[in-house]
């Protein structure tokens, strides 16, 4: 495995002249494993939260494939997804929904995993278009993944090549139902099957150069 030079262990000389070792992956990244986050203890509170989560879907603005172009019209007067409590956030920390908008090359997959893991629990993933389902027209490509749910816990697929914005809106409505029903537990599922996901991810990402979980 080729480690990037900036991630390799290095000997550093401090201002007092003493030399010591810096191991970036250990020193610069949190190594703690993720944990399952239980729902609120009181059911009614969890229901309230689930309602709020459903009515306030913040999308991570990360266009991974050609489907990204289908999301833009949702902000326009014609579709206006804001009415349904759907908004775009520029940072994964604040987003709840990750839309994989089309084919995902292994190179992008690494970034997608990073961004997904930086989102806060609960978080949801929508696979957009047939490429995320079975590779679509890239079924025999040497560098795109064929099944998104091998790598990330997908809550919902929206089929098509590409699905139109209406289909996306419809998908949001279905996602809302899932969330409200308390079935949007992809984040916990990811943690529960963490080893399986990681194994799948590492099988296709040959230069794994990040900690196992990107906090």
């Amino acid at each position, binding site marked *: 495995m080729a480690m990037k030079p900036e991630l390799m262990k290095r000997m550093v000389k401090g201002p007092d002249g003493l030399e010591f070792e810096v191991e970036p992956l250990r020193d610069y990244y949190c190594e703690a494993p993720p944990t399952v986050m239980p729902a609120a203890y009181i059911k009614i509170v969890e229901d309230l*939260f689930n309602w709020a989560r459903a009515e*306030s879907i913040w999308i991570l603005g990360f266009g991974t494939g050609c489907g990204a172009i289908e999301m833009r019209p949702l902000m326009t007067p014609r579709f206006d997804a*804001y009415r349904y409590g759907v908004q775009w956030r520029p940072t994964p920390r*604040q987003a709840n929904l990750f839309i994989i908008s089309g084919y995902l090359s292994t190179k992008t997959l690494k970034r997608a995993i990073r961004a997904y893991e930086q989102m806060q629990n609960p978080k949801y993933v929508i696979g957009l278009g047939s490429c995320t389902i079975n590779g679509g027209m890239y079924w025999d490509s040497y560098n795109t993944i064929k099944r998104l749910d091998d790598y990330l816990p997908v809550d919902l697929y929206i089929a098509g090549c590409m699905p139109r914005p209406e289909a996306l809106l419809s998908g949001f409505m279905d996602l809302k139902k899932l969330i409200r029903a308390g079935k949007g537990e992809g984040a916990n599922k990811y943690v529960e099957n963490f080893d399986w996901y990681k194994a799948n991810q590492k099988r296709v990402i040959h230069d794994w150069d990040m900690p196992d979980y990107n906090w």
Partner: protein
Amino acid sequence: MSFDWMKIPYSLLTLFIVVNYGFLLNALIQKIGARVGRRHGIPIWQNYVDMIKNYGLRSSITHGVMFYLGPVFRLSGGVGLLLFVPTIYGSYMFSNLSFAGDLILALYFVFFGTLGMALGAGESGHPHAAIGITRGLSQMTAAELPFGLAVFSVALQYQTLSVTEIVAAQQGGILNWTLFTNPLAVTAAMLGFLGSMMRPPFDVVLAPQEIPIGPPTEYHSSYLALMQTNRAIFPVAKIVIYMNLFFGGADDWLTFCFKVFLIYLWSAFVGVVFPRFRVEQSIRWFLVWAVPLGVLSIVVV
């Protein structure tokens, strides 16, 4: 004026009213913006939902002590600003905690939240946060100047630094408002106001497409919820100062809501029309257009 224990529940009542009004007002202004773009816009209660959701997020991370305290500083700044200024003129109930200090206290307490937030965002270690802060602080130095000059002008005009007395001096008809007795100062202040509301053309601090999204890049979950609460309180608290200084204050909550809405609308109105300035452009804009008015208001008052 001095402290008595009843002030605490009264202040909490003010806080409660303003938080709710702020949430609704923010949504309303956002809806107005959406309507200008011929969209339907968010539901009016959307901000509540967002806040509940953010409190409802199950996980969170922290980058350190200052990161953790940043939102606390921010919201304390908003709440304090609100409570240091009497909200309703002539009302003991809603004079809040203004016994602690006068106008100057409010003016300087504005920076409490800004500074704390800047420190918190700074500890996140994210370069975008730092870039956003440099932009915000740079812009603030120029945007606060016309407002500061206008405040000084008004204080000179009424020979007092007490907010209550300034409002008292404006009673007895709309023509007694500072807006009409000292239009230069008010114009300068209202131009400066644009710069402090984080709306276009002065929103390069957040610049979602460029440095997503400036200082709060790393904030999420309950941190963000606190900051959202502040976003409801802070503009209103700030507008209360403007209202008291320039627009005759408010005798009752209805007038209050109306005036605050109109003043807020001014920044929204400009915001939906104009694109974004770069930092040095906005600094120059304030120095060229707003500051001379403020200087003039000081000279002629």
